[in-house]
């Protein structure tokens, strides 16, 4: 009986626990690379996950993985950044994105 009550309490708490952990994605850009950072809203680093780089038409340009520091560096060589980029991070259980505009790139590239 006590076990059932405990289980019920855990299950009842589960939705709020899940909702409390959101993935936060940030990307900064310079002339040569996009640096992606991902962590959960409780401060925990997202150590695993797929990163997808998309163009302005949502066409997939590149995929790579998060490192255990919750970051990844995406070299821009060979990527057309003229219309900006969308960085998506998917940890399997959570996903989020960051938008990099052409103006962000120009601003951080000394233009």
């Amino acid at each position, binding site marked *: 009986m006590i076990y059932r009550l405990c289980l019920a309490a855990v299950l009842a708490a589960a*939705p*709020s626990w899940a909702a409390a952990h959101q993935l936060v994605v940030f990307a900064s850009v310079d002339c040569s690379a996009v640096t992606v950072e991902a962590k959960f809203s409780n401060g925990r680093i997202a150590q695993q996950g797929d990163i997808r780089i998309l163009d302005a038409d949502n066409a997939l340009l590149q995929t790579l993985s998060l490192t255990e520091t919750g970051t990844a560096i995406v070299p821009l060589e060979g990527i057309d950044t003229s219309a*900006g980029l969308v960085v998506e991070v998917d940890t399997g259980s959570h996903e989020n*994105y960051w938008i990099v505009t052409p103006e962000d790139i120009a601003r951080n590239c000394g233009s």
Partner: protein
Amino acid sequence: MNKALKYIVGLLALFTAQSLMADERPQIVAVNYPLAYFAERLIGDDADINFPVPQDVDPSFWRPGIADISAAQAADLILLNGASFATWIDRVSLPRSRLVNTSSALTDAFIQTESITHSHGDGGEHSHEGVASYLWLDPTLAKGQAEAIAAAIARRDLAPANDIYARLERLGVELDALDSATRDSLAPLSDTAMIATHPRYQYFARRNGLTIASLEWDAGAAPTKEELADLTSLMTETDARILIWEAEPPQAALQATQELGLVNVVFPTMVHAPSDLDYLDSFEASVTDLIEAAGQISTN
């Protein structure tokens, strides 16, 4: 240069000057319709007001395109609702000096909400934990948001300050009148329990002393069997006889809830511009519909 050529050159110069002037109009981006409406009332034709979210997308969970963000970055003002509304603003770089959180002075009035995770549309899974967002459904809070917009427009010198504050005064009088009329009209409904298909009406309910329980249904969609069962349970729990929809649902949905003994009311939240009506008129029309629904209950 003959006369005809001079005339053409003159016309071209005029056209070019007008084009340049059009391009130089201040650009204001708003994250929802009420903020766009208040900005339009305050600055009139002196600026372009842009609310970029497509009509069929919930602005709270809109995922903008890159061009949308470029436009926002170039805007003179970006009007934010605050209160956890518009998640996209945390996923882009926006110029801080041009961001206006229209509810930063209203945080004491915020309503904390329960945490419920769900998903609808293509916005992905999300939760309503945190703070209720639809501040503008309380005209006194809407007035506070309008005041913040006026101050930002004046501070950035986008239009003559005297004009802005004169328009703010007029808008304030209209919002006060709307608030007063709404409170008077709804006072007899203080003991009438209601259910909303989505948790949108917290500020409206509090301001007017109403009790509105909430479901988590998709806007404008027909409820499933399970959702109807939830509704039946909530009816038993609250004794509610009025069901508030934020958007017009399919006829079959209206019929199904009517068969449960509910009177349906569509009360647009105005997060998007209501069709044919502005903020004030839509608000007033919805209040009238609520009163009529309560009248139907009492005659049944």
